[in-house]
Each structure stands twice: as C-alpha cells, then as structure tokens.
C-alpha cells in the first residue's frame, strides 16, 4: 500500500470528524436561540432551526454543491475531488451550508413566519451562498480573498442577508416604545443559551480546523493544530474582553454578552486562523469581542431589532475578521476589501429583493395578534413548555 492511500484515508477521516463537529452547531444554534427568545416563541425557533438543517442540506445535495464547485447536473456529478473521498468532501461542505442560514434565524425570530423564511433558505443555500462560495473558494473572480473558513463566505453572507431581512420585517412589537426608548426583552432560559454557545464553540474547531482540508503531512498536521489553537484563543479573548467591558460599566458579569463576545472572537478569527501566529488571535478576538459589545446598542439605536445579536456577532465580525487577515498577515488589504464589498453588495441587494418579493407574494411576518400570543401556537401548534399544573394528568 502506498503512503498516499493512507493519506487519502486519514484526510477523509479528518473531514468526517470535522463535519461531525460542525453538525454539533445545529443543536448549538438551536439551544442558543431557544434560550434567547421568549418562551412563547421557543418552539417556532427550534422548528426553524431543524427545518433549516433539513432544507438547506437537501438543496445543497440536489444542486447547490454542484453549482458552487462547478459540477454538472445534480448531486455530486462532475465536481472533481482529489486527495480524499468525494463523499466526505461533500459532507463537510454540506455541514457548512445550513450554518449560513442558522445565523439568520435568531435575528428574525419572534416575528417571522417559518414557511416564507424557508423559501428564502432554499434560495440562500441553492444560489446565493453557492455563488459567493464559488467566487472565493472555488476559483471564482474573488479567489485572491483569503478567507479560511468563511468570515465573509459564511458569516458576512448570513449577516447581510439578515440585515435585509430585518429591514423588511421590522422590529418586534414592543421592542421600541412610542417615545423611542429601547425595551430589553430578556432571554428566557440561560442554561440553554450557555449550552448552545459552548456547542457552537466546539463546532468551530471543526469549522476552522477542517477548512485546512488535509492533515496528512507533518506540515498539514501542524497547520491544523495551529488553526484550532488560534480559533480557541480568539474565542477566549472575545469572551474576556466582553466580560471586562460590561463589568467596568455595570459591575455585573453578563453571560449573554460574554458568550456573544466569545462568538464574536470566533467569527473574527475564521478568515485568518491559518496565517497568523499565536498572539495575533488574541488581538483579533479581543477586538471581535469589543465590537460585539458596542455593536449591539448601535443596531438598537437604529431600531434594527436583532433578538440574539446575530448582526453584531456575524456581520460585524465577519467584516472585521476579513480585514484582520490583511492587517496581521501578508495579504492584500485591497483584495480583502473588494471581497467584503462585492459580497456585501451582492448578498444584501439580492436578499432585500427576495424578501420584498416574498413579503408581497405570501407575506413574511406574523399577524400582530399571533405575535402577542407567540408564534408557537400559530406556526407550530405546539407550546415549548405547555404544562400549567405540573402534576395534571
């Protein structure tokens, strides 16, 4: 047996391992978002998350992957893969796609109807994301953008589409009072938020680590080690900085902000974890964490109502992370900026159009009354915690 065959085997195994870690982000997002919204909307958010995984992965299997990697026809046809199993490569890529939409699902929660949102999800995973992915990752015209695991391709894309969605949707009833004040709507279940945040963090090791695509030489193994270590470091720094900023302001330790800070750091390092040394991720992640803390009130100021802080985490830090590559490593700032702007313009515009069309065609937002009662009843017919009297038969 040739060493190359063993390399093939090891890299295939490594891709599977990474993909499985990424799929842990499905419960991760689900729990994070279920914990952050109000009880009356928990089932709707969970249903959205599970359906997203199902629908986006399915669309990607049918044609999205093919479109992204220049295949022909459907399924995996005509996409050339060497060095590891084509199935494993597809599986890894598929694990990515639903994340792009999961990013959005918290931000539009508590007021969006699930079916129209799923319609967008089909277009996102079948066209928008594969196109952007193609431009940057599959030899397209933005190939000179360095974006290891998708600060732009995944996080900014999800973030821009979310921004469009929120603009079309509007804020939740009662979020901004008539006299223009902001009414915080607290998270309903902190253990779920924490569980979700930590599962996302763990999933990120597969996200970024797996994006090295191979581990089967000494150099590759070192690179994967570096990537995973750097990923973690940026998360640490984001969490710590978010902690400190809030603490110095309020003398309190705000767990939802700490976790958002960590996620901000993780998004920020996603573009360049492979091209920086050990201390840069500290700076990149720290700035990421700080950006989250300041972006949350910023968006609120403009009455852009994002229940879970997804714009602050994914859009702002997706941009920051892509820029950081040029600041901390030897890449062209211009290229990075071009990537950010082109992808941003494209994704935002097309998403805006799609959401406006969906709104006109089938409606996007829940009735006011259903919003008051919670989407769970209208959309799902299932309450998250339905029991009134615990011991009722």
């Amino acid at each position, binding site marked *: 047996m040739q060493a190359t065959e063993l390399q093939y085997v090891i890299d295939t195994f490594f891709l599977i391992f990474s993909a499985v870690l990424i799929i842990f982000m499905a419960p991760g997002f689900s729990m994070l978002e279920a914990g952050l919204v109000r009880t009356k909307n928990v089932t709707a958010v969970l249903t959205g998350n599970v359906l997203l995984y199902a629908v986006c992965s399915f669309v990607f299997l049918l044609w999205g992957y093919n479109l992204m990697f220049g295949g022909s026809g459907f399924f995996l046809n005509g996409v050339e893969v060497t060095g590891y199993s084509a199935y494993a490569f597809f599986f890894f890529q598929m694990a990515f796609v639903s994340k792009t939409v999961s990013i959005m699902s918290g931000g539009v929660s508590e007021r969006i109807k699930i079916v129209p949102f799923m319609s967008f999800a089909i277009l996102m995973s079948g066209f928008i994301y594969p196109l952007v992915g193609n431009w940057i990752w599959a030899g397209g015209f933005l190939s000179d953008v360095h974006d290891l695991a998708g600060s732009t391709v995944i996080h900014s894309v999800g973030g821009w589409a979310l921004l469009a969605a929120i603009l079309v949707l509007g804020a939740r009833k009662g979020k901004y009072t008539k006299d223009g004040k*902001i*009414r*915080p*709507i*607290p*998270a309903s279940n902190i253990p779920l938020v924490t569980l979700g945040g930590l599962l996302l963090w763990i999933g990120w090791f597969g996200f970024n680590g797996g994006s090295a695509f191979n581990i089967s030489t000494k150099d590759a193994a070192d690179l994967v080690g570096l990537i995973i270590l750097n990923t973690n470091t940026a998360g640490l720094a984001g969490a710590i900085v978010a902690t400190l*900023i*809030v603490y110095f*302001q*309020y003398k*309190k330790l*705000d767990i*939802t*902000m700490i976790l*958002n800070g960590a996620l901000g750091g993780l998004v920020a390092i996603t573009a360049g974890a492979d091209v920086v040394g050990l201390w840069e991720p500290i700076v990149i992640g720290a700035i990421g964490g700080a950006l989250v*803390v300041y972006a*949350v*009130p910023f968006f*609120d100021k403009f009455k852009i109502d994002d229940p879970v*802080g997804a714009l602050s985490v994914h859009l702002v830090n997706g941009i920051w992370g892509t820029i950081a590559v040029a600041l901390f490593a030897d890449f062209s700032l211009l290229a990075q900026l071009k990537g950010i702007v082109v992808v941003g313009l494209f994704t935002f515009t097309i998403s805006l159009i799609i959401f406006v069309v969906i709104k006109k065609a089938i409606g996007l937002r829940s009735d006011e009354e259903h919003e008051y009662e919670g989407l769970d009843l209208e959309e799902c017919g299932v309450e998250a915690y339905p029991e009134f009297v615990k011991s009722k038969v």
Partner: protein
Amino acid sequence: MKKIEAIIKPFKLEDVKDALTALEITGMTVTEVKGYGRQQGHSELYRGAEYVVDFLPKVKIDIIVNDENVDKAVKAIVDSAKTGKIGDGKIFISSVEKVVRIRTSEEDEEAI
C-alpha cells in the same frame, strides 16, 4: 370565619409556616405571585443594557381561620415575616361565608 391573605417575601415562607403551625393553624394554601409596590424593582442586564424589573417575587399565603384565631394568626405572620425592610408585604382580611371539606362534606368550623 375569615380569610387571611398574607403577601410575604419568599424566603420567609418557612418561618411563617412554622409560626402558624405553632398556633396549631395547620391548613394553608400558598401561591407564587409577583408584587408591585413601594419596594423598588431591581435592575437587570440584558446583552449589555440595563433595565428595571418592576414586579418582584412574592408568596401569597391564604389561610381560612375561625374568627377567634384571626388576631393571633395575624400577629404570628407579622412577627415571623418582618425583616423591617421595605417590601415585607401586606395582610388582607375578609369574610368567608361557608367552608366545605371535600372529602367528608363537613361544613364551616368543622371543615377548617
């Protein structure tokens, strides 16, 4: 017969129960409620912004007693529930016309 409704701080429930039991008042029904009053709500954080929570957790105890027991029950509750800090709660007393014990269909004084 009178109904005594006492709204107290939750962590005093055990003490009040003990004080009433000491008077051989051994029936009561407890409800978890939220109170709004002079006691200022606390402020909470949410994703880096502060806001005030007006309604504070309280416990409501309903006790039906014979008329002659009202005063000592009230005294027992006041003594055991008082912390001296604002928000200690209130006691409301009203009339009850009839009491029935479901198990035996006994009525009034016998049913308490």
